[in-house]
């Protein structure tokens, strides 16, 4: 039987096992345990921990370490990730690899301490200035978060891109039984600085953005084609398909099970990568589907945009209506999702697109 462990601690230990050698960050609830854990743990394994003066400094320290081809990590939440956007944009521009964990909390500005998914747009669109995306991984459980840690770095390094692990406040704070992965000793990358100018990099004023744009698009296309991850069930005969990720995704799976038992033809897609968005899953949906429903923990509905666009792309001959069930914060209950479906069927909830 696996040991009970708190989400943030488990993720931090998984990072150590994935070979992280530098953590730099600044405290913010509900992510802080990640840095607290690593302040003790990283020195034990010969790594470096820096309590930075700000999130801005933290991500720039990560950039320095990443430039040396070393696995580096930072974690934060809402307002802290806002401050990190400058660095994330620069790391993306320099095509360096790192992982950023966003333990999402609800709200604009200072926000609140409630668990939520309100940073969906920011994380999946890039977030900072410029033309770039980050690979975004959205675990539904502590075990899945832990299991995704090493792949998060593998993806970041394969494509030389930032991988965002987007978890939620509740996932960081709850405890579950969890099996820890084995230790990895990552190899140093040839493009990492060694002081010898062995990786020849050109100066910023010698760059050709036109050629770089072609390469960037090619990279994004490859990621979209190769790296979509999701879980699905019941799509073949579904009249309604729910789409939800993270903890709401896990809850929706329970709702689908109960609704099926009650005779409703429903299915679900749980994106594990929200960028690239799992478009391939939508190709498995019954072509006579009546509607597609996003269930999400924010106020305005954000995931719904990708859901609506993707169904438009995959079922081209008609306009499949898409509905949104935003629960604002927390985790939508099974009851919330079931009632939502009934309201959609009765016409009480109108389509969003």
């Amino acid at each position, binding site marked *: 039987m696996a040991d009970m462990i708190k989400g943030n601690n488990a993720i931090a230990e998984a990072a150590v096992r994935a070979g992280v050698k530098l953590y*730099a960050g600044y405290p913010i609830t509900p992510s802080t345990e990640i840095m607290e854990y690593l302040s003790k743990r990283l020195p034990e394994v010969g790594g470096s921990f820096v309590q930075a003066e700000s999130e801005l400094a933290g991500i720039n320290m990560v950039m*320095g370490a990443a430039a040396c081809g070393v696995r580096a990590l930072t974690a934060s939440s809402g307002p802290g990730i806002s401050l990190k956007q400058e660095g994330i944009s620069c790391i993306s521009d320099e095509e360096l690899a790192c992982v950023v964990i966003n333990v999402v909390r609800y709200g604009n500005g200072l926000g609140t301490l409630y668990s939520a998914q309100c940073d969906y747009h920011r994380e999946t669109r890039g977030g900072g200035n410029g033309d770039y995306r980050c690979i975004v991984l959205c675990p539904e459980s502590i075990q899945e978060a832990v299991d995704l840690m090493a792949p998060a770095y593998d993806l970041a390094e394969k494509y030389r891109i930032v991988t965002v692990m987007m978890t939620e406040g509740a996932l960081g704070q709850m405890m579950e039984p969890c099996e820890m992965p084995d230790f990895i000793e990552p190899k140093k990358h040839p493009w990492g600085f060694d002081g010898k*100018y062995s990786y020849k990099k050109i100066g910023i004023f010698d760059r050709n953005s036109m050629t770089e744009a072609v390469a960037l698009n090619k990279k994004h296309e490859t990621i979209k084609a190769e790296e979509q991850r999701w879980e699905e069930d019941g799509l073949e005969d579904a009249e309604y398909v729910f789409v939800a990720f993270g903890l709401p995704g896990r809850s929706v799976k329970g709702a689908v099970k109960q609704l099926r038992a009650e005779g409703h033809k429903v299915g679900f897609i749980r994106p594990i990568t929200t960028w690239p968005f799992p478009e391939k899953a939508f190709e498995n949906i019954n072509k006579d589907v009546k509607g597609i429903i996003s269930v999400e923990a924010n106020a305005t509905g954000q995931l719904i945009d990708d859901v609506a666009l993707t169904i438009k792309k995959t079922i081209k001959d008609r306009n499949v209506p898409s509905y949104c069930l935003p629960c604002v914060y927390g985790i939508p209950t099974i009851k919330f999702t079931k009632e939502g479906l009934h309201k959609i069927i009765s016409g009480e909830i109108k389509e969003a697109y």
Partner: protein
Amino acid sequence: MAKARKVPAIIDNPMSFCPGCGHGIVVRLIAECLEELGQDQNIIFALGVGCSSLLGGGLVIDRLHCPHGRASAVATGMKRVQPENTIVAYQGDGDAYSIGIAETINAAYRNENFTMISINNTNYGMTGGQMSWTTMPGQVTTTSPLGRDCEVTGNPLKFPELAASQFDVAFAARGAVTSPKNINKLKKYIKNGLEAQINGEGYSVIEVLSPCPTNWKMTPLNAMKRIDEELIPYYPLGVFKERKEN
């Protein structure tokens, strides 16, 4: 025939500084010091935004162009994972002392083991000569058109003095590029800073009073004169924190 002085190997292409700019002299000094210390194949630069970034095209070394103000944080990350490399954060005064004052102070505060070299030309050079935190009282810039009024803007910042008096840093000094004598002294400071780092003594900062003839709207010669006559009385040259070894 007299033998020409050898250009350090890591200086490759011409850098596009304005005629009479001080950056070029400092780059040359750093390159000479690195060569003399056997570090020119063991060096990573965290380059600031501004005219500092022009180094990028001219030095054949590992270098990262850092976001404006953050070079000291980037250098911290580099040094922490690669302690055997010599790390230099190379920044303008606007970069190091205005937008990046938090990152700069905190690196000194933690006594991070790298060397920060800041080019103090009393303005934001690359963006066309706006006021920075080292602009002199009364100095006309594009954002202090009537001359800097310290009553409303605060007084010019003296970072090496601050680092030396408030933090446990290894070495802090200020030099200038106005005469062969000053240049030779500056080279000693740079070498001292790098040696402090190589020996693991901790943070070193060398500020350089450097002309920006373009934005000061002066001839290169008059710009040098301005440093000698106006800047040095306010920004004294010398060592503010001696290395323990010396």
